């Protein structure tokens, strides 16, 4: 079974530039998550999708971050414009979580992440 794919793996940009990250979840996984992991910290949820609908985006800085999952499969996360404090690893994860009912034993599978450096 193929895992969660993310690209690019690394990105270096200057502040105020724009950047986009792509995620392809495990086939058949209805739920997709984007996390931000700052160096030395645990992952923090940015947004959760169930199929192509947003379940939770309460911690997404909506003035600069946006995300979409148009066909319920792949997803993109965009930052525009980037700030220095956006330097982090952006992790995508997926889980089965079908039918809108989340199993208590559902497992999130993480991709390798995109390491963003904002100069």
């Amino acid at each position, binding site marked *: 079974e193929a895992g*969660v794919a993310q690209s690019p793996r690394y990105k270096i940009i200057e502040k105020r530039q724009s950047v986009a990250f792509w995620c392809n979840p495990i086939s058949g996984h209805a*739920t997709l*998550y984007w996390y931000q992991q700052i160096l*030395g*910290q*645990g*992952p*923090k*949820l940015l947004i*959760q999708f169930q199929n192509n609908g947003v*379940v*939770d985006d309460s911690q997404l800085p909506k003035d600069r971050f946006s995300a979409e999952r148009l066909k319920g499969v792949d997803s993109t996360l965009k930052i525009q414009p980037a700030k220095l404090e956006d330097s982090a690893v952006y*992790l995508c*994860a997926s*889980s089965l*979580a079908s039918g809108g009912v*989340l199993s*208590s*034993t*559902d*497992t*999130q*599978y*993480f*991709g*390798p*992440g995109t*390491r963003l450096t904002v100069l």
Partner: protein
Amino acid sequence: QKEVEQDPGPLSVPEGAIVSLNCTYSNSAFQYFMWYRQYSRKGPELLMYTYSSGNKEDGRFTAQVDKSSKYISLFIRDSQPSDSATYLCAMRNPGGSYIPTFGRGTSLIVHP
């Protein structure tokens, strides 16, 4: 006070040692407790998953939960250099969305 506290380490041990990794938490509503392992430049992978209090064993790994003390532990027996990674604890409520609250992770180094 953060909801989940975890010492970042690093924790350096010789090969074969028993390793103890710990987290404390403040939210008494947490019922599900998880341990993730994260290798350098990789995403976290789920190691152990326990519900409420008690112990759970899987090979060389044992997870313990003490809800009365709001304290969870992961023990690694016969540690190997391949166990060198960052170990993240995570926990969540029984209801609502399946979004765990993560600790900051403990860096473990097992040297030959």
